[in-house]
């Protein structure tokens, strides 16, 4: 069981991700934008962060850049949830320090497979 932070401004996507991961036995917290994620990450230590790219207040790329400067978050896996129309975002995310990505749209099985890949 891992402690996972799901960040997305879309409540339906967030609940789909959280519901799926909880069903697989993980402990999931949710945040609705990058700033909220930073706040939550300040209070808990997460084993994995899944973050949408395009969000109001603070986008996912800025969030990754910021969180990598936080103590304890240097090597924590962070996956960007990107869309295929934005391949350049994958590279932007990597440059900011993201571990990898999961391309939207994804289904619960793909999500679990990718998470298993990172958590080993």
């Amino acid at each position, binding site marked *: 069981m891992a402690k996972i932070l799901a960040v997305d401004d879309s409540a339906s996507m967030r*609940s*789909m991700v959280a519901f799926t991961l909880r*069903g697989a036995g993980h402990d999931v917290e949710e945040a609705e934008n990058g700033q909220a994620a930073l706040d939550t990450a300040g209070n808990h230590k997460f084993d994995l962060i899944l973050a949408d790219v395009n969000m109001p207040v603070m986008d996912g790329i800025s969030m990754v850049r910021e969180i990598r400067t936080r103590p304890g978050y240097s090597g924590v896996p962070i996956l960007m949830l990107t869309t295929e129309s934005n391949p350049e975002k994958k590279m932007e995310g990597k440059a900011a320090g993201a571990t990898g990505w999961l391309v939207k749209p994804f289904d619960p099985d793909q999500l679990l497979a990718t998470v298993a890949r990172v958590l080993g």
Partner: protein
Amino acid sequence: MSKVDLAQFHKAFHEESLDGLDAMEQALLALDEGSDDPELINVVFRAAHSIKGGAATFGFTDVAAFTHVAENLMDEVRSGRRPMEKAVVELLLRSGDTVRDMLSLSMAGQPAATPESQALLAELSAMVSGGSAAPVAAAKAAAPAETVESWDITFRPFDYLLKTGNDPARMFRELGALGPLRVECDASKLPSLADMDASSSYLGWSLHLDAGAKRAAVEGVFDWVDGDCELNLAPRIAAPTPAPAPAAAPAAPAAPRAVRDPAANSEASSVRVGIEKIDTLINLVGELVITQSMLSQFQDGVDESQLEMLRDGLAQLGRHTRELQESVMSIRMLPISTVFNRFPRLVRDLAQKLDKKVVLDLRGETTELDKTVLEKIGDPLVHLVRNAIDHGLEVPAKRLAAGKGDTGTLRMEAFHRGGAIVVEVADDGAGLNREAIVAKAVQRGIIASGDGMSDDAVAELIFEAGFSTAAATTDLSGRGVGMDVVRRNVMDLGGTVAIRSTQGSGTTFTITLPLTLAIIDGLTAAVAEETYIVPLVSIVESVQVQPDGVRSVVGGGELFRFRDQWLPIVRLFDVFGCQGKRPPVDEGIVIVVEGEGTRIGLFVDELIGQQQAVVKSLEANYRRVAGVSGATILADGSVALIVDVAGLIRMQARRKAA
């Protein structure tokens, strides 16, 4: 693997998409008015982007395809390749409407691609540069097939790799899942212990995967570290085989659309409640529990010295109960902005169509109304706004000639007054035309002549059934819905509509609505052994009638004189078939009530008092009963029926006609 039913997220997706579309519309309108705030463009882009992502995830492919093209268009604007011109705003506004329709079709389990949506999609695609929208997944040129026997891989991460959260050991495990893997480690670059940084990577590896794994699978293991390492993937090929004829696009398995469970799709309406309201509730319940435990010490009796404490406790209980009631009621309350939000668009479209200049002034948008009232007040407001722009406000030339600015103002304002909510729709247009209204009313046979009628009385005429003053019926107002329907809709909500007009300077409609439909203020009245409640809003006056002021008419009806009118007396005793003594007319009270512009007198034995009644649905608990709108429970635990005044008036009218 997982058994996650995506249908459970459809409703949340639908709601957030509607919110996104509303935000998009508001941003587009602001952009249309010349704002150059870049965040507005982001809002529009994000709405299209999120809906596309969600629609694709939850299987609404038609919606996803449509929003994909809208998103591309917005991406061009966002990146500065296209100016945000009128035509773009126009097209995106229409797109928002279409997506709204497509979503509701999707939620109903129907195909969302309609001829209209396809036509608009074609327009969108034509606008996006390059004309045709590139298919989302361009078929890759078929690579010649290789028959790989095994893979030799050299992999040397750059020193920062571990900091990105990628872990070579994990990647080797993935490779190991593809087949037997041999790993050799090259530690030649390992620094002395003193110089070592635990979070840096110094090792390199040579790997041999003894399996004919597909290139995509092997590359897939390393896709996240592309650019963060030296990587060489060398397949050992057995014997080259000629490239097979490019396989026809894999016949997409026509997956039968899952038949939606109609129950899962039920229109159970929900309310989103702010967390602070829930917190208040929890607080209050907590205090109630404390009060309860304080009072429970008196269960074995009270001695005189404790009376003061008991009184305090009961007062506290009363206060908490009242606060709890208010707080629970507030859960059903939503800000009127949810209704007002649609008007900027409507006003813009109407003004454009009629070549008028209109500024919409929305005020009091945070005023809260009962959800049911909110849902039903939209249509009457739309009608008033249409009327105001169509008939009330003048074209610029006419305004200038009248010495006014060329731009008309339409004010929509909501506020509290007493125990009610007031919504005003006011324009600074020409005002009602007395002569035209009188002429029309005479022509329609509503009145004989306008002589001696006050301006207010003339204004009231527009609420008569079938009244319309537009010289030429435009496609905006002449929709067969008159002001009489507006008034009826508002009255159904327990409210009233009043009009105030000044020739030359404008018209104001004032809608007064009850705070909630769940609680009414009523007058309790006794009839034989029963208690009935008459809603206070419909009561004009209560009078005692003398036998000589009553006339019997053919068919058993009774009339009584009320000021200068003869009104029918409706005896609740007869209507509800009460048992017992039927008192003569001078031993009871007549409550004069008004509904839908008609007055009748309700005859009861006596008035008991005024009280708030929590309305319980009779239909839900028993069945619909003519002349009764609901029931409530009295302080002594007995049930009292709430009289449906409008229903009784209709019953009376039918009896008269019969």
